[in-house]
């Protein structure tokens, strides 16, 4: 595994008293900071909260907001809430899958994009909606997908792609 500086995790931990009830909050802060829950930090947390590793692992795999694998630099969230689904969000997802060659829940080989589906973003009025990091795209059509993704620089498999 790559060497990384996990010292900031300690700072996060110490903002909370060592009580079980703060577990989820701590994990969320760690997820936000590191983009995932690194294993060494999970072990650090075991010692800090005195909660068995199996329980931490159970929690970390239960909640969708937490991920044990690093996410890409750009996280593409396609809304597949009910309103967006009715307005063909599935074809947006299909198109991204085709262009980036990844399925929802995974990351491109170069670590650039992660694809996720999310529930209602409250912007049903401009459905279907997708968000890349914090940027909003409304009324997306499959034909706009490529153009939008290219705003984030060249796509990895550009050459091989006819």
């Amino acid at each position, binding site marked *: 595994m790559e060497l990384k500086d996990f010292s900031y995790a300690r700072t996060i931990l110490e903002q909370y008293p060592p*009580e*079980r*009830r*703060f*577990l*989820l*909050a701590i*994990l*969320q802060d760690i997820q936000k900071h590191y983009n995932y829950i690194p294993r060494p930090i999970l072990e650090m947390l075991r010692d800090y909260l005195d*909660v068995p590793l199996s*329980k931490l692992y*159970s*929690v970390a795999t*239960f*909640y*969708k*907001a*937490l991920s044990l694998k690093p996410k890409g630099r750009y996280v593409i969230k396609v809304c*597949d*809430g*009910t*309103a967006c*689904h*009715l*307005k*063909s969000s599935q*074809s947006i997802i*299909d*198109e991204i899958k085709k262009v980036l060659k990844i399925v929802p829940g995974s990351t491109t080989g170069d670590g650039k994009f992660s694809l996720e589906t*999310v*529930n*209602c*973003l*409250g*912007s*049903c*009025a*401009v*459905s279907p*909606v997708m968000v890349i990091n914090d940027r*909003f795209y*409304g009324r997306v*059509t*499959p*034909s706009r*997908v*490529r153009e939008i993704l290219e705003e984030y620089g060249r796509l990895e498999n550009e050459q091989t792609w006819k």
Partner: protein
Amino acid sequence: MSKHGNRTILVCCGPGCLSNHSMDVYEELKARISQAKIKAEVKTEVKATGCHGLCEKGPLVRIEPDDIFYTGVKVSDVPEIVEKTLLNHQVVEKLLYHEPSVGRKVISPKQTRFYKKQMKLALRNVGEIDPSSIEDYIHRGGYKALGRVLSELSPDEVITEIEKSGLRGRGGAGFPTGWKWRQCARMQYYPKYVICNGDEGDPGAFMDRCIMEGDPHSVIEGMVIGAYAVGSHEGFIYIRDEYFLAIRNMSHAIEQARDKGFLGKNILGSNFDFDVQIVRGGGAFVCGESTALMASIEGKVGEPRAKYIRSVERGLWGKPTVLNNVETWANVPVIMDRGAEWFSSIGTENSKGTKVFSLVGKVQNTGLIEVPMGMTLREIIFDIGGGIAGGRKFKAVQTGGPSGGCIPESLIDLPVDFDSLNNAGSMMGSGGMIVMDDRTCMVDVARFYLTFLSEESCGKCVPCREGIRRMLEILNEICEGRGQPDDLDTLAELGEMLKEASLCGLGKSAPNPVLTTLRYFKDEYLAHVNEKTCPAGVCKNLTVYYIDESQCKGCGLCQKNCPSHAVEGQRGQPFAIDETKCIKCGSCMDVCRFGAVRIRGRDKSWK
């Protein structure tokens, strides 16, 4: 037009308008006004508010007290607004809302059917105030009810008032709030907790979010009143982590309330102590379920437990706990302020007051609405919602999210209240209302919800985990053209069992989307199973798109919008779709203005 007093410009910064860049409009208005200040004869204040409701036409800007409302405002429109409206008292014609019922543009929101038919109690301040200002809230009568409760009423009197109001929980099942409080108040062990459920897991809904973002103090005030009534000193607000603005506004509101003495020790000199804190949810629909939510607050996996012993007796950390939904809490101050009698005069026999809905899907006016209970679906969808978008045909409306069901056109005059919806096989849920047209496949809708639920079930009990998985497996088969004659019976039987034998409400209500579509749209299932066609043209394996040459005007819009370059032909002449390249996204059909793009079943002989 008024020339006296202050003028306020309310810029909608609800989720819909924000994604339409209303924050830029807000910043631009502020900048321009401070530049133009010397010339204006009235003090003008710009406020970023919560959702105004008519998200479809956002970004929305309202100017008070002139009572002007503008729609679709862009940054480039700001100079004109400042110049014309603010300095010269003229309206900017092109930004006015076109009211279809009168066929012309109107100036005031009150002239629109969208707003006229609504009644705002829970949303009373949303869109009217700056949510970061406790002064705004107080100015509109906020915390008055709390003051009266603490100084004049005993806890028992508060509960009696809530009972008399007939308030039922807005989070799903419609449990009588007063009764819940009464049971908790009776428990003689401490500490007790009150919780606000702001998890809002319904994948097509954003009502609670808009309340928490747009009027956080109404929830806090409700919770303090509730805590006083049941004898609790500590509360939690459980908010979905994705709702960062709701979390921010709520945290800010809590601090302000503490500063002003509405939270903390000895509230308003009454000797009553109460404080709340926010817990961020971890992204799990099941955590909206009361016992799972409590497990989650405790820092555990959000798995429900059997509820033969209720939470009011043994809830959070095994202590008596009252859990209510955001909207339920927001209603409490209004009831205490205006009285149970007044509140219970609104609504129907068994469903009192109003209900907030997020009205979305294939409807003209997507948005956030609040209506008196008992209003019919027709009034909501056609009068407020403006009917179906694109002039298509209404097919069904879904209420209650993944726990609810689809209601067909034949029941369009159904009054919307807890019992009528239950009888129709659906439920009120927390207030998602999704309108569907003839381009919506009901089997796909059922499959959509089950896919969602298969990921969201906690997986603890067999009926829910295995039942949803297998029902979904069957629906997938049906949508892909491999449905078998027995499948519909299997779906119905498994559904019946899930409803009774699952451990928690998630599993118990999970079959509803399937059972209601089976009940009202059986023909559509049969078309998938027997004829291998999808009448709505949604299930890709069962659909072939083609262009009807006699209708095609050769405009080329379809060609332009096809992501797969499957449309062949020259402008001015009828186009054709190359089936081998078609990825069946339906873009062509959605953009064609002449109805020339058609669908037929997979079997070529069928046309």
